[in-house]
Structure formats: structure tokens, C-alpha cells
């Protein structure tokens, strides 16, 4: 044991002499662990939130009975079923306006509520009495309380004037949901004796067949293992994971180069230890122990960094998920023990994998062999051939996936294969370029420049691969975001046709507003909209009522349409379908969609497809008059106005004063547009942040590689100095070399990045969001990225080059004195 400690002390002494190398190793491990764990923390947080949402008092994790038209039904059916032995519990759901927020109101019956509804919050003993007995309670999440700016215990009124029971925080609850007793919900929603669905608990005996009790008034919906939300957001999390994985590998590149060099330099030390009598087993064991301990330390630091990264990114992720899918993620990061263990585990595993080749070499080392420092670079040529062959194989996989892959995973597979292949083939490409340069070079210094660049290639290749990947991803993601941004803004201009938007609190107010507006001269047109919700093929679908107005015909963007689509919309038997819904249902122009309506099925001919970016729900656009005929309950509270631009502020002020409308209820087009763009920008904030992180890690990889190389390159540089090339000149040559290989890499990254962008837009986006964007290339952006890459390389090269420029001549002389 003591001997082992001595061996460890000797091995560790290496790091004392090579502090920079030590820092490099740690930075690599920390970077790898931090981004990976950060992304995992975010994903975990989101998944927990989906789970909570799914399980909230009998969500989709519980089997239930619903009416076929998804409408509410009489609670007499509940009693009938209970008396036939069905262990059902009633739920009434609706929306209420509270302090200007639209909230989901959930009425539950706690006495019969199935006890086994996932990880739903449970009501304790005394809580139950307080919940049910007057005045009762409104259960809310802490976040909701903050959003509403209400204190616990207050009983705020909803827009109808009715008061909620006092608010009470239930920590496990999802945000934006108000949970009340079913009786209270029936009163607040003005649906006496009505329920939305019946949750099915554990049977107590053998209930009569459903048909014999309620006929075909109710149908059973089985619980789903994966919710719609999870299915939709899967792609988003896969996206994050891909970024995390990329950073992880880039971090491991750093570790690999640091460990590789350290082992090479320690080979004489290992041989001496063995010669002194330390057994091979002991030396190897101590080597592994050293690595694992370092990985543990770095892993812990990485986890802490990962925590901060996750905490910093979470608000944007939450905003993205809310904007894209309507998913509610708490902004407060909570972590489980498994996360910490997994993070440490991946750090150790990564370190061992990255150091595997070096460890194996050390284990197999014959005790009497002479040292061959930098021998790992000598088999360069053979390696290049092997690596290029591997790259071709990986490209073949990419092609195969592109041709035959259908799923989102396949889309990411294409991306991964493309990037891996490109990374593998990079050294060969650079070798060819440098060889060409060498052949055309004149003069000994230029010749040496090219030859030495080639010789350096294997030492730098991992760092350059990292740079290539980071740049390619950057190009791809930036192109996609920019494309999206332009498409989105163009689309928004068409969609926001009216000049002023009003959302009345109820139909009565809407009528009053309309009557008032008729007497206002500046109002050129009053456009009424409306929305109803229904289900098509088991999916929630929004029915959007379009006013029949020339403005819409001109501006509303259609991606694809039958002849005279707007005219065909008017009679009420035709609809436009949103792009994502058309993909989900696999219907196109000319198909027929049957929509369940209160008065019976409503058959709609699809006469157009329109883009509906950012809407998590599928949508069908129909004539508003037809919508109200089919869904008489549709609130007619949305009003759009056409008003001359200069009259808008005055009109809005008058509206606000007349009907005491707040800013949420009346807004002009510019405000709505600005809000939409703000949400959109936040959506991609996290992507941009991760993008920057990845580029940063690639920069570190380049820096560390150059630093490790710098020391070992003295034997190559000293003779040049000895023959009269000054140190500043040497430094300048070194800098030029680094920048030129970086430039070649960056130039290679551009086409690769564009392919990545195409994959993102044409494959990943379509699978993930349901919409396809036109593909644009933005040359300015590309030039900017190349500049950023060169800047990163310059910064990375500056430190070693500065050291070289200021190096004492004695150090250079020593090279000759110490030469073995």
C-alpha cells in the first residue's frame, strides 16, 4: 500500500512540472461533463413536468370515459355507473379568466378520485375536509400564485364576477391550473350537473358492461404511456441531447490529447519505476486510480458548472417549450440524486475511454524498450488511410438513412453520420491541401512551413475535428434560425391582417363593443373571429373561424390551395388545414375531414393548407359564420378592426376607457407582432446559447492542443533558430500555420454546415414541429462565422506563440544539449 502511494506520488509529480497539461486535462473533463449534465438536467426537469402534467388528478395516465363528441355530459351517468359498480370519479374541466390570465379550471371529486393516478398530488387527511367543506379551497402551484400576483388565502373573482374559493398552494401541482371541488367548478363554469369525463379507478368487484349501463353515450379512453406533449417535445429534447453529446465528445477530444501526451512524456518515468521494482500490475493500477480520481474531481466540478448552465438556460427552455408546445415547465431547477451519480459516472467513463489507448500502451510496455517520444505521431500515414476508409463507411450509413429513414431519430442519424464522417476525413483533406502547398512551395523556409504543418497535423487533428464539428453545427443552426426568422416574420405580416385586436370578456361585452364601434367613423371594418375546440382522430384540434373579408383573401398566406379557395370556404362545407395538422393526419387538398360537432359530424373538404408556425395544436380554419352554426357555444369575443394607422392610438384609448379593457384585451397590430417575435426569439435563445457553448469548447480544444504541442515542438524549432531565424519570425510562422489550418477547416465546415442546415430544415424540423421552411443561404452570416473561427484560432494560438517569441535562447540551446 505504501509502495503504491509512492508510485502515485511519483506519477503525480509529472503534473507539478506540467501544470498547463494538468489544467488541460481537467478542463476537458469538466467541459465534457458540464454541458452534458446541464442538458440532462434540463431534460429531466422537463420530463418531470410532463409527468406531473400527465398525472394531474387523472390526466392521460388514467383510463377514462368521455362523451364521443368530447362535450360535457350529465353527472347522472356518473351515478348510474357507480351504482352499476363502475369505480369512476367525475372531472369537470374548463377555462376561466383570472386577473387577465386564462387558466385551466379542474373540478375534481376527491372522495372517489382514484388513488393510483401516477404521481398526482395527494390530499392529506385534514386537507380533504378543508377542500370540500365551504368555503373550500382552490389548489394552485406556487408558480401560479406568483403569476397571478395573489397571496395564499385570498379568494379572487374570475371574469364572470364569481369568487374562487381561497387559494391554497399544493407544491406538486402543475402551473396554470386551478383545482377546485367539482361542485364549485360546476358553479364557476355555469355547468350545473355537468362533467367532462369520468376517471376509472380500480374495480371493486365486477362491474356491468359499459354498454348495458350508458349505451353509447360514453366511450372508454385507455391511458397512454406517452402523452401527446411528450411525443411533441421528444424532438426538442433530442435536439438538446444532441448538443450535449456533441459537447461531450469535443470535451473528450481534449482529454484524449492531454492524456495521450502526458502518457508519452511519462513513459521514461514508468520504465524507471518498473526498473526500481514496482510491479507492472501496481504501476498500471495506480495509473488507473490516478485517472479515476482526476475524473471524479473534474466530474464534480463539471456537475456544478452543469447545474449553473442548466439554471441559466432553463428560463429560455421553458419559454421555448411553452411557446412551441404549450408545455409548462417550472423555472426552478430541481435535481435528483441520480443526476449527480450519472454525471460522475459519465465523467469517469469518458475519461477511461479517452485514455484507453494510452493506458493499453502503458500496460503493454516492455520494461527494457527504449523511449520513443512522439511515436504516436509516426504512424500518421497509415492512420490517415484507415480514418478515411472509416469516413467513407460512415458516409454510406448517412446516405442509407437519408434514403430509407423515416423517423426523427433517422434524421438525427443522418446528421450525426455526416458530421462524424466529415470529422474523420478532415485530416486526410488537410493532408492533401498541405501536400499540394508543399509541392508548390519555393525556398527552404516555405518548404519547411508546409512540411512542418503536415507533421503537426496528427497532433492537431483532434482539435481541428472539434473545430470542424462546432463550426458546422454553428453554420447549420444559424442558417436554420435565420431562415425561420425570415419566414416567420413574413408569415406574421400576412396573418396579422387586422389593425386592432380586441378580446372581450364575454359575449355580452363583445356585442356592446360591436354596437359602440358601429358609430365610430374611423373603423373601416369589424371582423369577427371565433375559436372552438374538438378532437379529430383522437387529437385535439382547434377550429378557427375566419371572417369573409377581402383583406384575408389578399393577405392570409396559403402554402397550397384548390382553385377559388376563399369562395369555397363561405358555404361552410370546406376548410383550410394547418401544415402541421395536415402532416399529422396525412390529409391534403381534396381530402375530406370529419369533425365531431355538437349537432353531429361535420364534413369538411380541405381546400387549402396554410402555415401555422408556433402553434402546438393542429388547426382547421373555416368560415366563422359556419363555425358558429356548428358550434353555437363558440364565444364570439374576438374582434379585429381595420382602422387607418393614425387613428389607432385614439381608438384604443377610447376603447379602454369605455369598456375598461386592459392591455391584454385590446392591442394594435404592432404590439401583437412585437410580442410574437419576442416569443419567437426566446424560442431559439437556448439553441444559440448551446451553439456558443459548443464553439467555446472547440476553441478550448484548439488551445489545449496547441499548448501541448508547443512544448514538444522545441526540437523542431531549435534548429531553425540555430540557423538564424529570429524568434519573432518563428512565432509569426507558427501563427500563420495555425491560422491557415484553421482557415482550411473553417472553409470545409461551410459546405458541411449547409448540409446540416438542410437536414435540420428538411428532416428534423418537419418531424419535430410539423412544418417545412424554404431553404435559404445567408453568405454574410457564413463570412462572419469564418471570421469567428479564425478569431478563436488566433486567440488559441496567441498564448503558445507569445511564449515562443519570448523564449530564452538558453531553452532553445538546451534542446541540443539534452538531445538523446
Amino acid at each position, binding site marked *: 500500500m505504501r509502495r503504491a502511494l509512492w508510485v502515485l506520488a511519483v506519477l503525480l509529480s509529472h503534473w507539478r512540472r506540467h501544470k498547463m497539461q494538468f489544467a488541460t486535462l481537467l478542463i476537458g473533463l469538466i467541459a465534457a461533463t458540464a454541458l452534458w449534465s446541464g442538458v440532462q438536467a434540463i431534460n429531466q426537469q422537463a420530463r418531470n413536468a410532463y409527468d406531473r402534467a400527465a398525472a394531474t388528478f387523472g390526466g392521460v395516465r388514467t383510463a377514462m370515459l368521455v362523451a364521443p363528441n368530447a362535450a360535457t355530459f350529465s*353527472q*347522472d351517468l*356518473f*351515478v348510474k355507473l*357507480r*351504482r*352499476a*359498480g363502475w369505480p369512476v370519479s367525475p372531472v369537470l374541466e374548463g377555462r376561466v379568466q383570472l386577473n387577465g390570465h386564462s387558466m385551466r379550471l379542474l373540478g375534481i*371529486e376527491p*372522495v*372517489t378520485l382514484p388513488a393510483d393516478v401516477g404521481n398526482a398530488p395527494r390530499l392529506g*387527511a*385534514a386537507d*380533504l*375536509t378543508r377542500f*370540500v*367543506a*365551504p368555503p373550500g379551497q382552490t389548489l394552485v402551484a406556487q408558480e401560479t400564485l406568483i403569476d397571478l400576483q395573489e397571496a395564499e388565502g385570498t379568494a379572487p373573482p374570475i371574469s364572470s364576477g364569481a369568487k374562487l374559493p381561497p387559494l391554497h398552494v399544493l407544491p406538486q401541482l402543475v402551473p396554470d391550473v386551478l383545482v377546485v*371541488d*367539482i*361542485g*364549485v367548478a*360546476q358553479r364557476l363554469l355555469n355547468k*350545473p*350537473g355537468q362533467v367532462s369525463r369520468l376517471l376509472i379507478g*380500480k*374495480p*371493486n*368487484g*365486477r*362491474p356491468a358492461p359499459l354498454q348495458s349501463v350508458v349505451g353509447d353515450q360514453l366511450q372508454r379512453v385507455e391511458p397512454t404511456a406517452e402523452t401527446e406533449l411528450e411525443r411533441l417535445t421528444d424532438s426538442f429534447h433530442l435536439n438538446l441531447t444532441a448538443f450535449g453529446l456533441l459537447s461531450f465528445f469535443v470535451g473528450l477530444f481534449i482529454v484524449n490529447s492531454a492524456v495521450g501526451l502526458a502518457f508519452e512524456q511519462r513513459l521514461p518515468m514508468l520504465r524507471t519505476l518498473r526498473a526500481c521494482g514496482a510491479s507492472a500490475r501496481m504501476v498500471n493500477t495506480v495509473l488507473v486510480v490516478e485517472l479515476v480520481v482526476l475524473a471524479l474531481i473534474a466530474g464534480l466540478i463539471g456537475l456544478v458548472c452543469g447545474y449553473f448552465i442548466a439554471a441559466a438556460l432553463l428560463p429560455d427552455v421553458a419559454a421555448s417549450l411553452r411557446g412551441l408546445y404549450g408545455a409548462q415547465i417550472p423555472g426552478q431547477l430541481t435535481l435528483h440524486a441520480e443526476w449527480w451519480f450519472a454525471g460522475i459516472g459519465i465523467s469517469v467513463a469518458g475519461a477511461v475511454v479517452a485514455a484507453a489507448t494510452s493506458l493499453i500502451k502503458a500496460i503493454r510496455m516492455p520494461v527494457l524498450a527504449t523511449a520513443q517520444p512522439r511515436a504516436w505521431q509516426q504512424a500518421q500515414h497509415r492512420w490517415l488511410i484507415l480514418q478515411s476508409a472509416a469516413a467513407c463507411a460512415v458516409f454510406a450509413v448517412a446516405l442509407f438513412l437519408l434514403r430509407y429513414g423515416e423517423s426523427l431519430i433517422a434524421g438525427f442519424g443522418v446528421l450525426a453520420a455526416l458530421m462524424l464522417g466529415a470529422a474523420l476525413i478532415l485530416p486526410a483533406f488537410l493532408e492533401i491541401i498541405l501536400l499540394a502547398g508543399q509541392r508548390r512551395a519555393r525556398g527552404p523556409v516555405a518548404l519547411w512551413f508546409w512540411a512542418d504543418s503536415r507533421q503537426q497535423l496528427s497532433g492537431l487533428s483532434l482539435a481541428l475535428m472539434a473545430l470542424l464539428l462546432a463550426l458546422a453545427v454553428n453554420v447549420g443552426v444559424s442558417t436554420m434560425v435565420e431562415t425561420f426568422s425570415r419566414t416567420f416574420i413574413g408569415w406574421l405580416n400576412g396573418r396579422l391582417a387586422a389593425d386592432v385586436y380586441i378580446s372581450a370578456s364575454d359575449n355580452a361585452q363583445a356585442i356592446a363593443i360591436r354596437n359602440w364601434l358601429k358609430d365610430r367613423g374611423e373603423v373601416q371594418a369589424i371582423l369577427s373571429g371565433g375559436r372552438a375546440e374538438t378532437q379529430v382522430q383522437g387529437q385535439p384540434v382547434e377550429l378557427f373561424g375566419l371572417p369573409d373579408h377581402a383583406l384575408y383573401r389578399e393577405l392570409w398566406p396559403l402554402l397550397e390551395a384548390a382553385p377559388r379557395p376563399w369562395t369555397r370556404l363561405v358555404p361552410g362545407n370546406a376548410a383550410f388545414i394547418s401544415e402541421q395538422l395536415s402532416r399529422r393526419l396525412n390529409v391534403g387538398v381534396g381530402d375530406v375531414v370529419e369533425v365531431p360537432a355538437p349537432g353531429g359530424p361535420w364534413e369538411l373538404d380541405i381546400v387549402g393548407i396554410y402555415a401555422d408556425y408556433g402553434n402546438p395544436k393542429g388547426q382547421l380554419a373555416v368560415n366563422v359564420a359556419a363555425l358558429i352554426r356548428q358550434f353555437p357555444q363558440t364565444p364570439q369575443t374576438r374582434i379585429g378592426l381595420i382602422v387607418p394607422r393614425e387613428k389607432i392610438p385614439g381608438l384604443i384609448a377610447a376603447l379602454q376607457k369605455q369598456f375598461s379593457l386592459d392591455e391584454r384585451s385590446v392591442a394594435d397590430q404592432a404590439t401583437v407582432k412585437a410580442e410574437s417575435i419576442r416569443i419567437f426569439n426566446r424560442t431559439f435563445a437556448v439553441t444559440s446559447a448551446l451553439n456558443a457553448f459548443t464553439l467555446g469548447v472547440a476553441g478550448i480544444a484548439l488551445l489545449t492542443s496547441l499548448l501541448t504541442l508547443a512544448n514538444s515542438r522545441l526540437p523542431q524549432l531549435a534548429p531553425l533558430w540555430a540557423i538564424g531565424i529570429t524568434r519573432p519570425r518563428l512565432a509569426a510562422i507558427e501563427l500563420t500555420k495555425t491560422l491557415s489550418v484553421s482557415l482550411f477547416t473553417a472553409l470545409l465546415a461551410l459546405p458541411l454546415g449547409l448540409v446540416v442546415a438542410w437536414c435540420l430544415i428538411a428532416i428534423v424540423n418537419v418531424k419535430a414541429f410539423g412544418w417545412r421552411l424554404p431553404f435559404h443561404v445567408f453568405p454574410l452570416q457564413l463570412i462572419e462565422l469564418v471570421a469567428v473561427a479564425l478569431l478563436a484560432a488566433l486567440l488559441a494560438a496567441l498564448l503558445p506563440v507569445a511564449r515562443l517569441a519570448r523564449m530564452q535562447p538558453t531553452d532553445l540551446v538546451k534542446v541540443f544539449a539534452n538531445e538523446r
Partner: protein
Amino acid sequence: MSAERISRRTFAGGIAAFAFARRAGAQGYAGLGDTADGFAPVTPGKVFAFPGDHGPHPEFRIEWWYLTANLTDASGAACGLQWTLFRQATQPGPQGEGWANQQVWMGHAAVTRTDTHRFSELFARGGVGQAGVEAKPFIAWIDDWEMRGSERTDDRTLAPLTLRASGIDFSYALTLEANRPVVLQGDAGYSRKSERGQASYYYSQPFFRVRGTLSIDDKPVNVSGQAWMDREWSSQPLSPDQSGWDWFSLHLPDDEKLMLYRLRQKDGRENLFGNWITPDGRSVEIAAPANSLTPLAMTEIDGRKLPTSWRVSLPGHGLAIETAPLNPRSWMGTGFSYWEGPISFTGTHNGVGYLELTGY
């Protein structure tokens, strides 16, 4: 099913339905001593009127319809069953409409054989029809469990009735007949539970003849025997220093019946109450210092020691018997847990009955 039982049942109904308490324990019983503020008081001298009093009395805090049956199957093997509906009002005052109704209902059902004891429980809120009781025609129900009368049901005898209940692993369906009127317990239906005035209204139908089918694990058998139904309601059945009770309903030879219970106090003292019912339906309170109830054997269930065998001695009535449980593990592991099971007895009198042990 004396006052103790009332209090315990009351308690059980209330606590279990509303708190799903897993181990209410002794302090749970103490809760029965809460003041009856706002609820109707129980006073002596009530004149019972049927069928009205078969129905619910929502102005009182607690109430139950409690039936136990001692049966034998075709092979002569003994078995027993229980069917109980508890009502508890969470708040006094006028009855709320629909979901605003303040009544909570709880059902317990059990079957017992020498080798098994199965039980099940149900909860429901009043006001919407999931559970309730109506006096005429008589029906008491919760979900698909019911005790139902018909056009033929006599208000005085509360018979005939049909009875059914089911759990995940048992079910039963029975018909109940009786040819004698219900019997008032305590002093003309006023059942005193302590020296300080806690009391309940209490009457029974101990003369039921039963026939029907009982199924355990989907194996139906025909059964027949006798049953005993207790009706009790109160607002404050136990005093704060009472910890639980041991209650007996005994079918003596020649259609004599004995209801007997012991209320245990926290200070170790105990009070014995009961009624001796003659075949013609006369009911007299038994109160004599020489009467005694002595535990003979204990059964340990879930860490609780329960006296499942007893010596009962009523010298004034010439009764000295020893009781033995059909199944000593007749534990009701429901939200509010207790021991309830069929027993047999030998001595000066031989017969069968039911025993209930609470507060252990």
C-alpha cells in the same frame, strides 16, 4: 351494537371517509367526544316512528345501518358476513344541494369463514345519488351495494329485504325475512354511553332469517342462517375519556337475543351495558354490578393484541358462557380499522353471534 359501536362506527365513518386515516388509533376515538355544536342533541323520551326513522337523520352528526349475519352453507360449515353503511355530516345546518351536500357516506362489507376473512370499503359524497338511504320504499345504498325493500316491506319489521355487496374477491346476495317488529335498545331507544349524557338513538332487528348466495374467489355457495341489524344515530356518542369498546350480539336458544357491550375508559375503568330481548320482542336493560366480561385469549394482529375469546357472566339472567371466534383473524383493515367477526358460544347457553372490538 351499542353506543360504543356507534361511536366507533361514527368515528369510522367520519374519519375514514374524510381522512383516509390508516391508523386512527385511540386518539381517533377521543375525537368522538367532540362537542355536538350545531347538530341535533340526543335526549330521552323520543317517540320512534316508522318508516321515517328507518331513513336518515341528517341533522345528527353520525348514523349507521349495520347488519351482521351468522350463516351455514350446504355442507354445514359456518360463515358470517357484514354489511354496513355509515353516514357522517361534515357540517351542521341545512342540507346543501348537489355536491354542496355535507353528508359523507362509507360502506363496509365483509365475509368470514374459518380459513379466510375478506372485506371491502366504499366512500361517497351525498347529494348526487351515489349513496344514501330512503325510508319508503326502504333502500340503503352506496355504489352497487344495497339493502333494498319492496312494496311488501313491512314498516314495523323492516322485512323482507334484499342485500348485496361485492369486493374484488368476494360477493353476496341475500334475502332477509322477519316476522317480529324491530326492538328498541337501551331505555326505549335512548342508549346512554356515559355518565355525562353522551347517548344515541338505537334500535335493532335481531330476528332476521337469511337465505342466499355467498361467493368467495368466484365459488358460489348457498347459505342460510340468521342476521341482526342495528340502527343508530347520534351527534356525540362517546365521552373524551373513553378509548374503545367490545360489543356482542348473541343469538341465544329459543329466539332470545342479547346485546352487550363494554366501554373502556382511558383510566382503565369500564362500563357494561346491554339489553336482553325476549322472543316476543320485549327488551330490558341489563345493569347489575355482578355482570362481567372477561377476555380469555388474545390474538395478535398488526402488533395489536385483541381479546377474541371471552367469558360472559350475567348471574341475574342465569347466563355464563365462553365465546370463541370463527376466525380469530377477522380484522377489518379498512381506512378505520377494527375487528369484527362471527363467534360461537357454549355454557349455560349455546349459540352464535357477532363480536366487534375497537380502539385497540
